[in-house]
């Protein structure tokens, strides 16, 4: 029993780094702490939470954040599997291509977001210029509420796919080649080989990628702050951006903490849900097929 004490320093560290901020956010969320209270925390008995439930802007942001997260993560995973399969083939210059393919991930988000802002720019961006050859109407990518969010998803996919590709590629390399050869003797169908061998054996790597990316995409802030500032008409605003605005522009720390704590609960639920879902799929396709 006494040995259990040996992990105490690690537990304390984890509590300071992870536990304390969460508890502090919860504590702040049941206090008023804004310009009106002179930035001192005074208990307001759940008023922040009631405000949250009735805040249409917040719920719209939640839906937009979920939309951003789902589209981004789903497309990324599929693309990453395809890229990893390509990078796992033997071809001339594979090492160079592998190194180049990680570059988008290596760029700081703000830098790449600035780049994309120019690419999406109307009328000077290359996309609008190409469109202008065929049509006199411009798309107005970043000022059309129906299109701007797609642009944010696109930029996010561009940046993070390489990272997932790298994880999946590592996973692919753990699969022994003789499994594929044994399968080749039974069936020449490459697609069947992918679904019966590759995909099930990649499962642990997929779980890591999905949970990691869910958490990251759900908290998106910097990309949107630089690319669209949440606009046009709030159509790309995420929960993270809204929490930032409340704290840093409206100086309402209590309400900002409420938003953050709520999104923490929501994200935890998502991750657990994703984990259960993946395990369910695994149980279906692993061990017993009949």
């Amino acid at each position, binding site marked *: 029993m006494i040995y259990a004490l040996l992990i105490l320093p690690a537990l304390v560290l984890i509590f300071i780094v992870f536990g304390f901020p969460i508890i502090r956010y919860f504590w702040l969320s049941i206090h008023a702490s804004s310009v009106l209270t002179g930035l001192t925390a005074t208990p307001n008995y759940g008023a922040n939470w009631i405000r949250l439930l009735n805040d249409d802007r917040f719920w719209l942001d939640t839906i937009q954040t979920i939309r951003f997260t789902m589209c981004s993560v789903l497309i990324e995973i599929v693309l990453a599997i395809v890229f990893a399969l390509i990078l796992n083939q033997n071809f001339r210059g594979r090492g160079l291509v592998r190194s180049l393919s990680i570059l988008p991930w290596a760029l700081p988000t703000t830098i790449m977001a600035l780049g994309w802002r120019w690419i999406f720019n109307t009328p000077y961006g290359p996309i609008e210029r190409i469109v202008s050859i065929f049509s006199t109407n411009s798309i107005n990518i970043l000022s059309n509420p129906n299109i701007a969010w797609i642009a944010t998803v696109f930029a996010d996919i561009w940046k993070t796919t390489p990272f997932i590709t790298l994880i999946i590629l590592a996973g692919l390399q753990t699969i022994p080649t*003789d499994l594929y050869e*044994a399968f*080749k003797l*039974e*069936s020449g169908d490459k697609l069947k080989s992918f679904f019966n*061998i590759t995909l099930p*054996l990649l499962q642990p790597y997929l779980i890591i990628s999905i949970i990691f990316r869910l958490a990251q995409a759900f908290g998106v802030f910097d990309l949107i702050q630089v690319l669209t500032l949440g606009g046009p008409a709030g159509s790309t605003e995420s929960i993270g951006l809204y929490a930032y605005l409340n704290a840093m522009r409206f100086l309402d720390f209590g309400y900002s903490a409420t938003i953050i704590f709520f999104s923490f609960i929501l994200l935890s639920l998502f991750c657990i849900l994703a984990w259960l879902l993946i395990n369910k799929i695994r149980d279906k396709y692993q*061990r017993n*097929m*009949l």
Partner: protein
Amino acid sequence: MTLTISKISRRINQNWIIRDLSFQVNKGECLALLGPSGCGKSSTLRLIAGLDSPNEGKVYINDQDVTDIPPVERRIGMVFQSYALFPHLSIFSNLALGLKVRGVSEKQQIERVSSILSVVQLEHLSNRLPSELSGGQRQRVALARALLRDPHVYLLDEPMSNLDAQLREELRPELRRLILKGSQPVLYVTHDQQEAMAMADRIAVLKNGELEQIGTPLELYKDPKSFFVASFIGRPQINKLPIKNNIISAIRPESIYIDSNGISCKVIETEWLGMNKLVFLDSNIGNIRMICASNIKINEKLSISWDKSEELHFDATSEKRLT
């Protein structure tokens, strides 16, 4: 059913892995491919299975040229050195997968897998994952998968090399019962001459991708065509006597006997073989290995001799047998 390979060669870049290799395995025959690591025996197997293609030459199964047809159509029952069981599938599903992807009905899958599981006596483990099985059990699953393929040819790639010596001996009768008794030709790759002698009807000895000699175990032992074969077949290893007139003479340890009129030697090392001892002797014709009664001790002096007719002679440059 027969397996014939005719003048196959394979190279990777400029290096020849297999060169001009030809042999035939007849109906119900087991041919062992024997040789040191890197001699091309596993590569030969892969060419026959269709996992690689030869640069030159042809592979025939039942007199049909299969050189350019994909592995699945060759109907090969292969046992991999690593067994290559699918780690995420139960034993049952491991065996059923091949049937499933070839579109066999679910009812048939259950029937055939169950019957094969009872043949290899693993019914009670059908729900386990491969990682939950012992090495010997995994090997039996690999054999079962090959059986289930109902193949034209069996290819066994060092099927026993991952097992300990005792288990290997226990599984040999199993392997004979399941695979070698059938009418299909069996190609058995091994680097263990003892295993090759025990399992195969004929042995093909490979060296640097070329066929050194092919024949029955007894022929290879009695009548080796080169010094390489003589030293590879038979344990303890054959004694190489001093080269005279560009001729290598060699004598098997088991042909040497104690003779007071013979060459005088001193015992420098002994190894227990069980019933008797392997004795290393120092003499004026170099170091000699012989098999002796177990009461021999280190530093003992003895005189040895052998029948001159038991000696084998080889050309010192080509190492080929002289007759």
